[in-house]
């Protein structure tokens, strides 16, 4: 019996708690607290996730340090899936890093309303008009974060499967009707060719339907609480599912199908997905997780021909990813942090990102060139057009209601796609809930 030892351990745990000071000084996260003067060396901590597989944070930190040797940026690891939960806890407890990422616009509102972001309007003025997504971080005329990447949604297509099914590849002029017809033609054409692959694949996320419906429907407004604009988009998705041209929602959820495998191992000829998938697909093809085949990107199908075609600007959606400064940052470091923010939105920062296959927020010819020099990116004209020309609408309007409304719409999505409720009933339920549970708070 080593009870005395155990008691000692128990006391060792308890005593520090009991006598600990109740000072509310925020815990510094960096191990070296340097008293940095404006000229002296500064170390900034930066939130990131999955650092092993997501090189963007370290790449930006290194490129910035090369340009500004006196400032070092150290990424701090967060969990990718639960980033916002962890960040909320850290900000509340005062242990968050100096600079942190706005993973999506839905939570940006939460941080901004909660007073967890410094005003960086001066940086916004400095980086100027070549940066897309900047307006998403504007509240009452002030900017609270600076975007460094701006993902948009594209139509990915497998040229080999199109050829096998004898269907013409997208030419950039597709409306939704063209897309639906192609999906059905592909499915039957592939079947004739003895191939089990389906025409298209729709992942389980609500964005796959709702993001496009919101972006493309004139006058659609998430905050209005009127969700009737979703109807035609859901009717189409259900029709494609019923026709067997895309995998059934129930099968996709219960079998945990991953979109990477569905498109990457040629189980479907088309897929609408965000621009981040370009780098993923290339990496998986190199590694052997995905098959090697010819593919390209095209603009997402449009609601009518007025925005379709390579002589127009196709409408798509996507949230920017931005960086904001934690107000609890040491005052002496603010200037350095702002410099870093300005860098990530600059052309140099954008080239760094484009060089690793990421779609930067900063748009210019030099950046486009850098992006298409990344090995494996499809370089046909339509892919270049898709990357360079689009009107990307935000998926999440900045408002305190957004998170609540997206929850309500998430429930709508699962009940409609699984066939648990009719489209009209589900929309009515969602509108009632939006009115009574979210918009009246």
């Amino acid at each position: 019996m080593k009870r005395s030892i155990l008691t000692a351990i128990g006391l060792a745990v308890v005593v520090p708690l009991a006598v600990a000071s109740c000072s509310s000084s925020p815990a510094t996260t960096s191990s070296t607290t340097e008293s940095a003067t404006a000229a002296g060396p500064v170390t900034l901590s930066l939130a990131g996730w999955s650092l092993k597989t997501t090189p963007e944070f370290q790449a930006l930190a290194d490129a910035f340090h090369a340009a500004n040797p006196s400032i070092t940026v150290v990424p701090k690891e967060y969990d990718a899936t639960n980033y916002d939960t962890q960040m909320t806890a850290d900000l509340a407890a005062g242990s968050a890093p100096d600079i942190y990422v706005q993973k999506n616009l839905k939570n940006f509102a939460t941080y901004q309303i909660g007073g967890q972001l410094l005003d960086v309007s001066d940086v916004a003025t400095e980086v100027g008009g070549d940066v897309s997504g900047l307006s998403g971080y504007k509240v009452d005329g002030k900017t609270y974060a600076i975007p460094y990447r701006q993902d948009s949604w594209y139509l990915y297509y497998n040229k080999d499967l199109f050829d096998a099914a004898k269907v013409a590849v997208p030419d950039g002029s597709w409306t939704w009707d063209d897309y639906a017809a192609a999906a059905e033609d592909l499915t039957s054409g592939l079947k004739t060719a003895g191939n089990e692959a389906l025409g298209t694949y729709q992942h389980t996320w609500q964005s796959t339907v709702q993001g496009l419906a919101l972006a493309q429907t004139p006058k659609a407004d998430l905050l209005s609480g009127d969700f009737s604009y979703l109807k035609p988009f859901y009717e189409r998705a259900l029709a494609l599912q019923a026709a067997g041209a895309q995998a059934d929602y129930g099968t996709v959820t219960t079998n945990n199908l991953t979109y990477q495998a569905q498109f990457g191992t040629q189980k479907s000829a088309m897929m609408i997905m965000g621009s981040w998938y370009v780098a993923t697909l290339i990496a998986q093809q190199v590694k052997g997780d995905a098959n090697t085949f010819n593919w390209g990107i095209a603009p997402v199908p449009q609601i009518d021909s007025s925005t379709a075609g390579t002589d127009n600007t196709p409408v798509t959606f996507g949230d920017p990813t931005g960086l904001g400064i934690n107000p609890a940052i040491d005052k002496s470091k603010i200037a350095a942090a702002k410099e870093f923010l300005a860098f990530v939105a600059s052309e140099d920062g954008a080239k760094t990102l484009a060089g690793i296959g990421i779609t930067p927020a900063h748009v210019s010819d030099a950046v486009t060139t850098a992006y298409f020099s990344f090995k494996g990116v499809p370089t046909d004209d339509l892919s270049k057009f898709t990357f360079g020309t689009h009107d990307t609408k935000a998926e999440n309007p900045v408002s305190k209601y957004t998170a609540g409304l997206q929850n309500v719409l998430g429930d709508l999505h699962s009940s409609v796609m699984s066939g648990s409720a009719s489209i009209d009933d589900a929309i009515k339920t969602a509108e009632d809930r939006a009115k009574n549970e979210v918009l009246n708070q």
Partner: protein
Amino acid sequence: MAATIVTSPPAQLHLSSPTGPRTRLRGWRKILLYVVLIVAAAGVLLPFYWMVMSSLKTNNDVFTIPIKWVPDVFVWQNYVDIWTKADMATWLKNTMVLSVAVTALQVFTGSFAAYGFSKVRFPGRDVLFLTYVGTIAVPWQSYMIPQFILMSKVHLSNTLWSIIALQAFGAFGVFLMKQFYESVPEELSEAARIDGLSEYGIYRRIILPLSVPALASLTLLTFTNTWNDYLGPLIYLRSPELWTIQLGLRSFISQYNAEYALIMTGSVLSVLPIALIFILGQKYFVEGIATSGLKG
């Protein structure tokens, strides 16, 4: 606190079952029982079987329509990769340290406190006990943030101490042990009191030896819970060198790359230590403890 007179119950090896010890099941009934048990065990172990098989697949073969129960190609490489790609050794070490520390503290302080609740009478005891049990009824995610702020104030967050402090003093162990002590006949401790044994002596010499199965259960369950806990480490641990096995494995499911085959490999590896401990702990369950000469 040495006791002068000790009534030590003779510990006999003795098996008790509702049908009484050593009843012979007839041949065909025994066979039927085994068939039922084997079918049930197969059903119960099916997910584990799938886990093992998936750990031997390529990443894109894990989720397919319909299910593949046997991989086309056995990818033994996963079991090599997991040590290089992931920091498995560190995760295992951290999880082991946490589980052992939490279990030791929980079993010791829990059983000690349980004795106070069950065998010593004092005013306010039941209310205090209900307070204990009451905290089990509060969902952790609702007071997670106040608790996290408290821990951060005393600079415990992002250390292994935070998880130990978090889990070692729960009400679960106290409640479990108290219920077992209730079933130990009062006459035993009364007799010991008359013999002049102090309460501490009674706890050590009479109650503890009698509650081996309960202590074994508590040890197993606490160990398992700490080993498999995900939300606690997720909130408290940031530095990769502090990650536990559950945290590390989930980090594989990063946003754009689902390394499911490796996750399953890690899951298989993470279950093994617990299974081993469980099998070793078995022997405390087959030693029925005979209470000394008490006729019920």
